[in-house]
């Protein structure tokens, strides 16, 4: 048996094959989710919810906006050296 910390031991996500399976199944899920939209009847509260692919677009845009605004607006404002309070 190989020792636990041996350098050449390959773990699950070190193998290109498993990463490939993961990537393809993720892409397939995305396509499936986009397609599903047209087969369901939505119960909406607000008009914007009725837009096609509302949740997909909202999630993507909101995520990018959140990360970039945190990176380019908040971080320059609040970042200090680690010993700032010492």
């Amino acid at each position, binding site marked *: 048996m190989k020792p*636990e*910390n041996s350098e050449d031991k390959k*773990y*699950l*996500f070190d193998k290109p094959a498993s990463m490939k399976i993961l990537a393809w199944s*993720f892409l397939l*899920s*995305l396509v499936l*989710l*986009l397609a*599903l*939209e047209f087969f*369901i*009847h*939505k*119960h909406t*509260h*607000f008009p914007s919810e009725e837009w096609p*692919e*509302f*949740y*997909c*677009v*909202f*999630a*993507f845009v*909101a*995520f*990018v906006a*959140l*990360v*970039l*605004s*945190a*990176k380019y607006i*908040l*971080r320059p404002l*609040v*970042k*200090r*050296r*680690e010993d*700032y*309070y010492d």
Partner: protein
Amino acid sequence: MTDVLPPAAIFIIGGLLVPLIKGKWKSAYMLLIPVAGFINLINIPEGTHWVVGFMEYNLIFGKVDRLSLLFGYIFHLISFIAILYAIHVKDDVQNVAGLVYAGSALGVVFAGDLFSFFVFWEMLTVASIFLIWARRTKAAQGAGYRYLLVHAAGGLCLLAGIVLYVNQTGSIEFGYIGLNGLATLLIFLGFGVNCAWPFLHPWLTDAYPEATITGTIFLSAFTTKCAVYALARGFPGTEALIWIGAIMTAFPIFYAVIENNLRRVLSYSLINQVGFMVCGIGIGTQMAINGAVSHAVNDILFKALLFMSMGAVMYRNNNKINCTALGGLYRTMPLTCICCIIGAASISAVPLFSGFVSKSMVMDAAATGHMQIIWFILLFASVGVLEHAGIKIPFFAFFGHDSGLRPKEAPPHMLLAMGIAAFFCIFNGSFPSYLYSLLPYPVEYVPYTVPHVVGQTQLIFFAALAFILLTLSGMSPAEMRAVNVDADWFYRKGSGLFYRVMDISMNGLTRVADRVIVGELTGSICRISQRWPEVLCLGVMIPLWSITGVKGKELEGKIERTRAALQTHTSPIGISAAIATIFLVLIYLLM
């Protein structure tokens, strides 16, 4: 009522006895406390119990209804999990503090009057502080003191409110309070400090990441949830809470994106989740309150699970907890990794996991009430949860870049504690009817509808897509070792300003006092008191001597001798008596 005890008593008395028990039995004894407490709890009928007369008021230690019972159940469950997770800890300070802290939380939720409520509320602070200080680092010590000061201020605010409120209403019963006037506003703000409202929140993100590995599990469960309970009891339907809650969900997610310490990320996440509860309480409909309370139950479980998985990472990696130091741990800590992912899926409201069935109730209540802006803020915050808790926590600890660390898997008792929490995360998410049956109001909400499941899954997958694209393109913010200043800047840096202001004003006052009183006033009083007898005496004697015909050299000699006698305090008794008499006559005339 002789066969059951107040739930708080079992934990507090049981906790204080812990140091007396030695060796192997200690672990068994500590695990037995929440079990015994739970058996005791399910035998307490609904109603009002343990009413104790106190002056002209009644203290109530057992206001048992559906709201307090549900918090009671979850507090017992999480105590068991947290004690199991901490079973390796030999430090009795932490063991006692954890149990007394849990007992105080139970005291808060079953208190039927404001006096005993306040006492238990303060005990929460006192007990929890030891879970922070027990880390015994300089950072923990500082954070603990700041934690104590903030909570002391909040407690005083609450006390002032309670005194005014009792004075106005004449009753100390703790029921619906509602926001009207100064007394209720002070109570409201007192609750708000423990609830980590915006600007009142930094004690949480400051202290929780500095607490001990096991202490943080207790901390994450009780203080904020007690505040949620208190708001649900005293201020349901208060409109201000809708906005406060919405802001709480939204602002921490920005901080969580750029934070390096993973336990601090979870602390921001805690505020974000409590925001959903506060918002639900503010909306105040039956569905919203149900949503808030059920989300509190689920959050206690999944937040504890996430903190436990990060704690296990720290435990096995020499207290490393920064994104920059970790990565790739799934290789040797697969079970901890799976538990962490279950917690992450629950908080992200993945279908079949617990967040899905409770958070959506609050969002649905907002939508039903046509609160479009609030609904959008909550939806945005849900995406933010995915970013920091759903993806960042598991990704940077267990995947991401390979840090080269190959630690051992977490010890069995930690895995078991995480396993129990993970079980309930999945159970509550997959079979919500059990949780729903315990909620304060009847539940008509159906979480598993096709549009809801599809919509939520779309939200999760496309947020994940955004994460992947941002990471691959190198646009994700790099993890860096840094401090991000938050509202605590005002008292951490502000305290320096306070010090300088006090230095200038108070020490300035001392300097002025020194110059005026010590330097000038004392000297002049001294001079005057020496000079006046002379003036008085000679003022009377010179005319007298002149009349009796004393002149020239003789008069000067007499004046000289009198002056010398007065200056050396050797004046003959006759003269002293004469001066005293003249003085008394003068006073008599002036009166």
